[in-house]
C-alpha cells in the first residue's frame, strides 16, 4: 500500500536541477534506501517532502492527502518525521529531555507550564524505554553535547523516532562515524524501526550498508531517478555501476 508519493516534483537552484520532475513512491512497511553521488538530489528530495524547502512545482501526497503546501507541523501530524545529515540535537538539554520533548510534542503537551516535566511519569518512562532500545539508556542523564559521535547519531534518530511517525526519513545516519560504529548504529536503527512497524527512507552513501539493510533501493542521479528496485537488482544494474560505483557490472 502506498504511503507517500510525489508527482513530477521539481526544485531547481538557478541552473542546478536538484530535483527534476521526480515521481517517488514509498510503500508502507518498507526500509528503503535513497542513494546517489553528492549533489544527486537526495537530501533536496527529503527536504521537499519534509517541508524544509518548498517545491517549484509538483505535488506531494501522504496517503490521499495533498501536503504539498502544508507547513512542517502539519506534515509531522500527518506522520512524517526526519533526522538530519549533521546531528541536530538540543545540546544543553539532557539525553532524556531530548527524547521526552519529542514525546511531549507528539502528545500535544508542550504548552503545559505548571508542573515539572519529570513529573509526567508516562512520558519519562516511554523516553527511558526508547533510550534503552537505542542502546543509550545509560546516558539518559548526560547532557546531549557530552555524548560520543555514534551515540549522538543514535540520539538524533531516537528523537525523530519518538514522534512515532508513519514515515521516517534518516539523512545519513552513519556519516562521520567509524566502520565498527556504523554497523552497530545500523543494526540498532534497523531493528528498532522495523520492530516499531515504521516505514523508513534512509539516505546513505555506504553501499555495503545499503545492500545489507534495505528492502528496496532508489538511485538518484542529477535530480532524477536512475534505478529503483530490490538490492540485488540494483547491484546488477549497469547504469548504477557506471554512475554510482564507477565500475562496470
Amino acid at each position, binding site marked *: 500500500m502506498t504511503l507517500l508519493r510525489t508527482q513530477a516534483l521539481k526544485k531547481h537552484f538557478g541552473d542546478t536541477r536538484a530535483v527534476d520532475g521526480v515521481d517517488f513512491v514509498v510503500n508502507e512497511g518498507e526500509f528503503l534506501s535513497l542513494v546517489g553521488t553528492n549533489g544527486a538530489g537526495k537530501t533536496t528530495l527529503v527536504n521537499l517532502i519534509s517541508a*524544509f524547502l518548498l517545491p517549484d512545482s509538483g505535488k506531494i501526497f501522504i496517503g490521499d492527502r495533498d501536503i504539498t503546501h502544508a507547513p512542517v507541523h502539519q506534515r509531522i501530524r500527518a506522520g512524517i518525521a526526519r533526522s538530519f545529515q549533521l546531528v541536530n540535537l*538540543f545540546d544543553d538539554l539532557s539525553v532524556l529531555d531530548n527524547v521526552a*520533548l519529542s514525546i511531549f510534542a507528539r502528545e500535544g503537551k*508542550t504548552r503545559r*507550564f505548571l508542573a*515539572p516535566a519529570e513529573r*509526567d511519569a508516562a512520558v519519562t518512562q516511554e523516553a527511558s524505554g526508547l533510550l534503552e532500545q537505542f542502546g543509550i539508556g545509560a546516558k539518559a542523564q548526560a547532557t546531549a553535547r557530552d555524548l560520543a559521535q555514534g551515540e549522538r547519531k543514535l540520539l538524533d534518530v531516537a528523537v525523530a523516532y519518538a514522534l512515532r511517525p508513519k514515515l521516517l526519513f534518516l539523512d545519513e545516519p552513519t556519516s562521520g562515524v567509524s566502520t565498527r560504529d556504523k554497523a552497530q548504529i545500523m543494526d540498532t536503527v534497523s531493528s528498532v524501526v522495523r520492530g516499531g512497524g515504521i516505514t523508513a527512507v534512509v539516505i546513505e552513501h555506504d553501499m555495503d550498508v545499503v545492500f545489507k539493510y534495505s528492502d528496496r533501493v532508489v538511485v538518484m542521479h542529477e535530480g532524477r531517478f536512475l534505478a529503483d528496485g530490490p538490492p540485488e537488482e540494483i547491484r546488477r544494474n549497469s547504469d548504477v555501476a557506471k554512475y554510482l560505483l564507477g565500475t562496470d557490472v
Partner: protein
Amino acid sequence: MLLAFPALAGTYHTQLLTYGLTLAIAALGFNLLLGYTGLLSFGHSAFLGAGAYSVALMMRYLGVSSMELFILGGVVCSAALAALLGVVCVRHTRIFFAILTLALSQVLWTLAYKFFWITGGTDGLRVPFSQLSLLGGLVRFPGADAFPKFITSYYYYVLALFCVCTVLMWLIVHSPFGKTLQAIRDNETRARFLGVRIWRYRWYAFLVSGIFTGLAGILWVPLNGLVTPDVLYWPQSGKIVFFAVLGGFRNFTGPIVGAVLFNYLEVYAVAVTQYWQITLGVILIVLVTFLPAGIVGSAVRLGAKLK
C-alpha cells in the same frame, strides 16, 4: 533570615532590599526570554513602565488605592502591551529582536513625554504611600510618619509576591513548556521538526516575561513614590540586562542575585562617587571578560570543579 530582616536591618536597608526584590521579579521575567528562549530584549523598560504608569494612572484618574486592584489593572495592561509588542518582535531573533524591542520601548518613552497632560510629562505622576492600602484595605498608612510602617509592611508584601513569582517561574522553566523554550533556544530547526510552532512559543515567552516585568513595575512605583518617563528610557532596559549578566543568565537564581546585588551596587556607587556610571561600567567589563557565566554561574562552575 528574610522574615527577620526588617527587625534586624532597619527601615533604610529594608527599603533597599524591597527595591531589590521588585527588580528581581523583573529579572526573573527578563531571563525567561534571554536565558531560556535565547532572545535578548533591550526594551523591557516598556513593561516596567507599563506596570508603573498603570498604578499611577489608576490612582490619579480612577481614585484607586488598593494594591490588589493596582496589580490586577497593571498586569492586564502589561499583558496587553506584551501581547501587542510580541506579535511584532518574536518573528525576529538576535540583533533584530534586540533593536525592535529597544525601538518600541522608546516609542512608549516618547509617548509618556508628549502626552504630558495625561502622564505629567517630565514631572511625572505621584504615587504617595499614604494613599495606598494593602490586603483589600486591611493595612493603610495614613500620615507622613507612617513611612517605617509602610516599608516594613510593604517589604513583607513584596517578599510574598517575590516568593510566588519565583516558584511560578521555577515551575515554568522546568515544565514541558519551559523545556520547549530551551529547545528553541538550542536548536530552532530541530524544534520546528518536532512540530513546535516557534513564533507561537516565543510569543508565549514574551507574554509571560512582559507580565513578570510589568508586575515588578507595579510593585516598584509605591516605593519610589513617583513615576516619570525615565522608567521607560533605554538605560532602564540596560539595567535589567545588567542584572542577568551580573548574576548569570544560564542558571535560575543568577538574575535574582544580580538584581538584588545591582541595586546595592548602584546605591553605594552613587553615594561614593559622582562617576558612578563609570564604576558600574568597569564592573560590567570585568564581568563579561573574566566571569561570563556571572557570579552565580561562576560559583556553580567552581563548586563543580572542587567536587
